[in-house]
């Protein structure tokens, strides 16, 4: 008889059947043809902005050693289309729906969180306070602890759904930002968004992405993310969602050992469209092999 393997995890008041969800911006409704959405922990569509916006110039992606740079920007059809089209498309599935929000001001974050948080089909909000592609040389709300605290405090006032702050890795101390988000009322932290990066084509002398700089993702960044998850877990009890460079179940386990209770898989889906469900299966295999009854027995259990 096979023992029960409990893979359920909680993000605030939200319970997920397993700890694996897509990373925002690397997942779309069309992927249902290749992937069984009902088998993952949650669905997170691409970050949404209040107003429609076009995104950045092409080329928008380029490859690097063990990773890629993207400068998509937040190409978005705006909140109205999101409510009328995107949400119905995803709420057909049997897993929680987490909306990722990108906004230009704290007020706008509040306004959007109010609308989306009160929508019956939306189970949690991820606040993308870290997108390095925003105007202003890659600056983001999440680079400042005080701004982060205030942003979370204000959004907390308008909604009761679980709030996940997606932190930026482009900071001196992720611990300070994590503590600020915690103090402001976040229910969980995603650690972390992409690392600001740049590549130049030496033949044309032009930047490889239209926006000059973009965000680095993929296995190249994983050791940096594992470090940040570990550091963050030392200063807060909030659930951490590990993100950045996961290609398989072992990578997910590594982040879980470092302190994550859930993970997001982004770029890996571009290479293997079934990456998300593969990771679920590989985590389960690991639990079998090591006879782990409950995924929480692994969370933060690195032996330092």
């Amino acid at each position, binding site marked *: 008889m096979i023992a029960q393997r409990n893979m359920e995890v909680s993000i605030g008041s939200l319970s997920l059947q397993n700890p694996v969800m897509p990373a925002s911006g690397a997942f779309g409704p069309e992927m249902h043809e*290749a992937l069984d959405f009902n088998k993952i922990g949650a669905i997170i569509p691409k970050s949404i902005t209040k107003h429609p916006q076009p995104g950045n110039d092409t080329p928008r*992606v380029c490859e690097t050693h063990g990773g890629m740079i993207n400068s998509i920007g937040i190409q978005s059809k705006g909140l109205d289309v999101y409510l009328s089209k995107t949400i119905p498309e995803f709420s057909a599935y049997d897993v929680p729906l987490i909306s990722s929000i990108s906004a230009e001001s704290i007020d706008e974050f509040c306004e959007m969180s109010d609308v989306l948080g009160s929508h019956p089909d939306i189970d949690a909000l991820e606040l993308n306070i870290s997108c390095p592609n925003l105007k202003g040389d890659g600056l983001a709300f999440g680079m400042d602890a005080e701004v982060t605290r205030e942003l979370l405090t204000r959004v907390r006032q308008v909604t009761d759904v679980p709030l996940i702050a997606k932190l930026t890795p482009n900071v001196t101390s992720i611990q300070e930002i994590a503590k600020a988000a915690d103090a402001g009322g976040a229910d969980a932290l995603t650690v972390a968004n992409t690392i600001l990066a740049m590549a130049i084509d030496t033949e044309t002398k032009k930047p490889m992405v239209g926006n000059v700089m973009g965000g680095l993702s993929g296995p190249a960044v994983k050791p940096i993310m594992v470090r940040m998850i570990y550091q963050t877990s030392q200063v807060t009890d909030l659930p951490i969602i590990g993100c950045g460079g996961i290609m398989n179940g072992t990578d997910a386990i590594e982040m879980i050992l470092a302190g994550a209770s859930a993970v997001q898989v982004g770029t890996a889906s571009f290479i293997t469209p079934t990456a998300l469900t593969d990771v679920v299966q590989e985590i389960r295999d690991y639990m079998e092999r090591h006879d782990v009854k409950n995924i929480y027995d692994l969370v933060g259990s690195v032996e330092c």
Partner: protein
Amino acid sequence: MKQHLLPIISNVQVSSRYWHMKIDTTEMNETIEPGQFFHIRCSEGIFPFLRRPFSIYRINKEDDTIEFLYLVKGEGTKDLTRKKPGDTADLLGPLGYGFQLQPECDDILLTARGVGIATLAALAQEAGRKGVRCTAILSARSRDDLLAAETLQDFGAEVHKVTEEEGTSGVDSVESLMRDIINRKNIKALYTCGSRRLSRLNQRLAEEYKLPGEIALEEQMGCAMGACFACVCDLEEDGKQRSVRVCLEGPVFPLEKVVIS
């Protein structure tokens, strides 16, 4: 849009820069159309990291195979050349929307440049199959790059070759050649792929001659599944521009709508 692991039948160099790969599609039950593409994993490792998009060059329904014609450009295509018969090809697809051959368009003109030739070859094949008369202008750096010309001729197409090498591939020369063919053959539709300058020329002549047309676009891709918004371009409709994803809504678009930057 599914991941398929299929046996490679052959993978051989066909000219100084081009290779040709044939895949056994017996295990893949999908309808494939000319103009569609596959996102191919060129190596097993993590470098090159992303898949690479390749149009379908030939669709052989009779013996359940498909063929690709590819230019060795960088690391990805170099790795692809290392695959041997019997190895597995990791294909995601078929992806996107292909060309439309309208019944009333019984005489078509293709203008292709570089790897765009591979894309239009599949259309010439389809045209041949449907009895549509097809003329093709193939443009390349050198004669050696124009190996696909024979394939198109086999499909029944009348082929005109222009090259930099011979100084025949300038936009002006191609324009007179196109005008001549359009007039002489009573061309009913234009199809193009592979060159910005030839695309603009096609747009101009389509408008002037009031011909419908289609264009297959190439854009840098991430996911090729419509998820990442890497591959966008703009369409202009009713005076308004809107952004489309080449991988999902294309790669083939109405010629007159595409905003060529």
